């Protein structure tokens, strides 16, 4: 079953990109483009809340396109984690919540990390790669 994650983005509460990792897509973006895409997503997320016919909307959770799916998780503090993956990939929500845990453990608890700045924490990178690879192996093994 296809479970390929193409890329991961983390944006802070103001819409600035603080982390971008590409896991092997043909559409790898350079820094400027990834920054633009992240801000665009932040605005789209906000506008989608305004268009809700019912009150209490917390923004886009899943976007389905022809060639990819985009899953987004917003924490209570406004930090957004979103992942671009193959259409029909399962369990992305739990992966995103797990990445949020890794973020709180390895980034927020790091005394040298400045809030809202780009993430440069090696332990976060290592654990994140392990988490993403583990999902890949688990799905391919089924």
């Amino acid at each position, binding site marked *: 079953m296809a479970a390929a994650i193409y890329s991961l983005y983390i944006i802070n509460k103001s819409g600035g990109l603080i982390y971008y990792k590409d896991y092997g897509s043909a559409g790898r*973006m350079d820094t400027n483009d990834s920054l633009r895409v992240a801000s665009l997503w932040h605005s789209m997320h906000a506008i989608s809340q305004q268009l809700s016919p019912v009150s209490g909307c917390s923004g886009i959770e899943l976007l389905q396109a022809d060639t990819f799916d*985009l899953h987004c998780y917003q924490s209570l503090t406004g930090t957004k984690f979103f992942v671009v993956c193959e259409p029909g990939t399962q369990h992305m929500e739990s992966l995103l919540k797990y990445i949020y845990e890794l973020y709180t453990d390895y980034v927020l608890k790091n005394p040298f990390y400045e809030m809202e700045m780009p993430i440069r924490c090696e332990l976060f990178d290592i654990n994140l790669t392990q988490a993403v690879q583990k999902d890949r192996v688990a799905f391919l093994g089924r």
Partner: protein
Amino acid sequence: MQFFGGSEISPSPPVPTASGNNGHMIYMFNRNGVCLLYREWNPPLRTLNAQQDHKLMFGLLFSLKSLTVKMDPTSAEKGNLGVPQLPGQGCSFHSFRTNTYKLSFMESPSGIKIILVTHPRTGDLWDSLKYIYNLYVEYVVKNPLYTPGSPIRCQLFNTTLDQYMRGIA
């Protein structure tokens, strides 16, 4: 493209699956952003006036389309962000879901965009959107009194659409 698969003029409507109370609103826009149709079934929460709401919706779709073209992980060659795309060019999104609603989108090759806002647990509405496009062709385009590019005022189209929406969502 998937569009010209069927050869029937009016395909039979997809099997009704839901209770009839899930559809909220439908929007139809043409290539230039003119809102051809806006209908609502369950009265939604209104914070903006109609004009602003249509512009916001059209703007959201335009930006989401340029976002999906840019973010497409399978194509290496992309234009710049924000360049208007022709219908069918590049990767387009077909739906998004939030915790309170699901928005399904379809663009025809002529640039007619159909948007359905429904309950978040609704399944894939691709067939329904195609059927609504066929209703549009039958009742609106073939109506000699209708001028293309103007808001739709065809009673038969409205009643058939209402009936269909009550059946499927």
